């Protein structure tokens, strides 16, 4: 009996993966993201030059065969800096979203599960955070913390927490009423066990979709903050801070501005397509 169950058990995740695999644009996006991750991990081997190598005989060079995307004001190879920049962007995007999901998810789960006064208090707190436009909140947090990688992650994560809290709360509210929750309450399971073992795994689908799209948003905010000088500081290669230093040469050297921005756009584009694909795969009812 158990064996047969195992064989025929093609669960929700299996189906979702099957649907995702059939979605060609989502698979393409996944491929691009895979390439980016490889670039980030093996940046030292892939990049044609060290990212900080300055060559004062070849400053401001336009794209050529030697420097595929040209060089910047210090004669550093822009392609190599973009490849190394993928490390920071992916790292910031991933860690800020993970942080936001952990805290937002917990707040949302507690709020949705207990309801009543706890729910009211937590959601009003989230309303307050949401009353400040996200970008503005991230900017003021980044200004209050010292510039740097960790603080950038914290600033973006805090601005994102209310969104996740709301998504998880809504999911918990619907799951809470299901019979299997009642059943586990009857056999005396603790609240913590019910939340972590029964409720949260069942609201993973909306969380995953939100996380993919949210990571796109986080990478955008990170580059925007660095562009304003509140995030990663030069000379560390980061796409936003590369744009920020390219700005003063915008009148003569377009390539310094064009390529780092293109890198941001491709990453966000891939994440957005994957997010849309995941939404269709995880919730087929929504598909148009």
């Amino acid at each position, binding site marked *: 009996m158990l064996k047969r169950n195992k064989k025929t058990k093609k669960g929700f995740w299996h189906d979702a993966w099957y649907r995702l695999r059939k979605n060609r644009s989502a698979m393409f996006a996944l491929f691009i993201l895979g390439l980016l991750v490889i670039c980030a991990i093996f940046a030292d081997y892939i990049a044609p030059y060290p990212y900080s190598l300055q060559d004062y005989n070849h400053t401001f060079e336009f794209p050529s065969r030697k420097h595929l995307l040209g060089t910047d004001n210090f004669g550093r190879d822009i392609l190599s800096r973009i490849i190394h920049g993928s490390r920071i962007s992916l790292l910031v995007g991933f860690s800020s979203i993970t942080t936001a999901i952990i805290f937002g998810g917990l707040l949302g789960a507690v709020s949705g599960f207990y309801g009543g006064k706890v729910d009211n208090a937590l959601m*009003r*707190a989230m*309303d*307050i*955070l949401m*009353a*400040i*436009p*996200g*970008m*503005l909140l991230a*900017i*003021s*947090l980044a*200004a*209050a913390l*010292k510039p740097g990688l960790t603080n950038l992650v914290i600033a973006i994560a805090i601005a994102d927490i209310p969104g996740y809290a709301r998504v998880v709360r809504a999911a918990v*509210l*619907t799951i809470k*009423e299901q019979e299997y929750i009642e059943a586990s309450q009857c056999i005396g399971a603790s609240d913590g066990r019910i939340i972590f073992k029964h409720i949260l795994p069942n609201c993973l689908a909306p969380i995953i979709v939100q996380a993919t799209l949210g990571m*796109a948003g986080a990478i*955008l905010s990170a*580059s*925007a903050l660095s*562009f*304003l*000088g*509140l995030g990663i500081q030069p000379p560390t290669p980061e796409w936003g801070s590369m*744009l920020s230093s390219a*700005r003063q040469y*915008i*009148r003569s050297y*377009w390539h310094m*501005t*064009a390529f780092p*921005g293109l890198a*941001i*756009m*491709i990453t*966000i*584009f891939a994440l*957005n*397509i994957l997010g849309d694909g995941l939404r269709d795969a995880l919730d087929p009812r929504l598909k*148009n």
Partner: protein
Amino acid sequence: MIRYIGKRLLMMVPVLLGVIVIVFTIMYLTPGDPARMMLGAGAPASAVEELRETLGLNDSYFVQLLRYIKNVVFRFDLGQSYASNKPVINEILERFPKTILLATLSVTISVIVGISMGIISATKQYSIFDKIATSIALLGVSMPTFWAGLMAVIIFSVHLRWLPASGSYGWEYWILPSLTLGLSSSATIMRMTRSSLLEVIRQDYIRTARAKGQNERVVIIYHALKNAMIPVITVIGMRFGALLGGSVLIESVFAISGLGKFIIDSISMRDNPVVQGGVLLLALSFSICNLLVDILYGFLDPRIKSQYSISRKRGWRRNAQAQ
């Protein structure tokens, strides 16, 4: 309806008080000494200490917070700018119209472009136009606005020399920034209009309208669009808020002397009262905008209006149970 609006206005009060506390706390925690900043690095320690005393910076956190709230709530006094020594409220209100103008222009552009493209895409689903429009919209969503602004400067100001690159002296200075912001947020509105309209078009009452021989144009505009607009309006309201925040970036790209750029400049000068006041004003406008969106719902959707005639909370609970 009036009772509902009044209730929503009352609900805004604690939220805004909370915003004041958060913004004040963030700025309180910001490292650096404003008094030292104002007097310069060479000033004697006694002078710095004296200035700290007069500015009230030596008081405890709670004393400073309460004083700030009292001044803001009862006297609309946001303090004095450390940099210019003028009242913050005047400085901010001087620059706010430019930010509002930029946000309004961009929202107008994005609503016109986004909704019309969304309608065409949805009514001609899977056509060539639909495919091209949805791909462009996805690209638009993925583009950092500040980068789009920089590229627009490179193309239209540096190379083609059609439009000025920075400043805000005449109407022609507003074209690039508002088009950049407007077109990039039209992508979100277009995607929302398309998916919402596609959902509505499949409803029975649309089939009924078509079956009775109604002109397709009338079916789309009067029967479908009105019902599809509710999620779109939420998105427009949220975009307006995002634009108020995003204007910070676009204003500094195009050197428009609006509130956003003022906030960024004040952050680097450690001019805390200005940053606090600026963020507060933007958060207030964002809340008012959300309130207007909620009120609009009532007019557009009678189901929502009737729900609010009963207690709001009871409606929520019933919805939760129905799910």
